[in-house]
């Protein structure tokens, strides 16, 4: 069973997305801020990370850079989630080291497709 680390500060978003992913057969582990996200990436070794970009303590871009800088977590695919659909958000996420990008509100089928794509690349 694939393990997904969801880094999201908003309680409702976290609850909702984790339950929906769990229902699709993923094991979901949660982190509530960027700092915890970086630590969990290392300790839990997830198959994929869903990273909200506007996070407290350490934001998603910084957390992504930290994960990419750490040899133990460098190869884990990261999908950035942002509520801003502005141009440049995507580039900014990819530049930080994210593998893909999706906007909130989450379109579950679309997000699942992106998750599967990243998992397939990794296998």
């Amino acid at each position, binding site marked *: 069973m694939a393990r997904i680390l969801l880094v999201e500060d908003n309680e*409702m*978003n976290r*609850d*909702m997305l984790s339950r*929906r992913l769990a229902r699709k057969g993923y094991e979901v582990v949660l982190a509530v801020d960027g700092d915890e996200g970086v630590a969990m990436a290392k300790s839990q070794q997830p198959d994929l990370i869903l990273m909200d970009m506007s996070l407290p303590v350490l934001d998603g871009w910084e957390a992504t850079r930290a994960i990419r800088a750490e040899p133990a977590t460098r190869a884990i695919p990261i999908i950035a989630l942002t*509520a*801003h*659909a502005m141009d440049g958000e995507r580039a900014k996420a990819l530049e930080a080291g994210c593998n893909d990008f999706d906007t909130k*509100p989450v379109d579950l089928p679309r997000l699942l497709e992106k998750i599967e794509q990243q998992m397939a690349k990794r296998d």
Partner: protein
Amino acid sequence: MADTHPCDAHIRHDLRTPLNHMIGYTEMLLDDLPPACNDLLSPRLKTLLDDAYRMLETINRPAPMSSGHFDGLFPDWRAKMALIEADFNGLKSTIENAWQEACPDVEKIGSAIGNMRALLESLSAKPSIDLGDARSQQNARETATHATGGSGHAGGHLLIVDDRQENLELMQRRLIREGYRVTVSNSGRDALDRLESEQFDVILLDWLMPDMSGTEVLAKIRSKSSAHELPVIVVTARHGSETIVDALTQGANDYLAKPLDFPVALARIATQVYLRRVTQQLADANRQLKQFSYIDGLTAIANRRKFDEYLMTTWRRAQQEGAPVSLILIDVDYFKRYNDSLGHEAGDHALMRVAKAVSSSLYRVKDLAARYGGEEFAVILPETELADALSVAERVRSAVMSLELPHPDSTVMPIVTASLGVGEWRPTAFCEPSALINLADKGLYQAKASGRNQVGTLGQP
């Protein structure tokens, strides 16, 4: 959808968050719906979902102008919100009887709707969700955005120095509305005092003040901070080119004429804030790049570029002081065979270990270990005579051997070893460092010719 405006984008984002929750939980309920309740609840859930998506359309629709009264930008929000609430109340009472397990999630939908209502009311209560005189502000913003390369004005801490209270208050109010932090000061002396203890991004300095003139204040500022570090925009009522040229030659970054044309002032302030920020980032990046450009990617010791530069500086200093310079060239024995028999990954690993052994054999800060070429390393020893250089070389040779890295194909020993050449030179005025390199190279050749894993030298020239 196109978010036209950073401020606009934030409002839309804040509105989408509760909608996002509403949609998500409603969809989950639909997914989980027990077959027994399907007929009863499915249409109601779908209706609520539909309402939410319509509201989302409204929020995402690009407004004709990015500023103005909220109700003007989203004219139909009240009707849509009322529909959402009515449909939700209907759903809630039905679900409470039919499917009790769903109640916690229904509560969450309810609180998301409540949040959205509160947010919409608060936006609607504001006279304008952007700024009052929409057109000219909008133009100013566009100009500023253009000037800052599309990033919008980034905020920042401004210091306004002006002896006239009414000028200060007006500027302060308008700039705060634009998102700046603004500190005001009514005299040059007071401004200089503030600069001692506070950090500013840009200073707006009135040129004509009674106690201490703008010229004097600017001179004091520039004696401590350069135009890159602390931009100063001079504000002057005199339109003559003489004043402007004076101000600019004395270190002002830009000027503004009184009475102020606010959109122009805004654009120029934004430009200075942006330039200062970019200049700082560039300086940081350059420092970092410079560091990286001197380091060998594999072994993390100095690279050839650093070696060349350091040898040249050492050489020049030695020329002036009449001091000796010694150089050690180090070659890993039969390294090609090592790679061939154990693979390139093992080869890389061995080079990293050897580099470490070389650099940790040096005890003085001024000594430099560098990767010279593929499997060649070099050590520069400033102010060092041959005898001392030879003992350093011997230390390096034995450190490499002590690594005990197995080298099955070596004819010297079954472990990784190195051959070393040493030279010493007292550079005279017209002689170049290549002479020392050649000398050390000949020593290295001798070490190899006599069976490797040893230190060779031709002695002093």
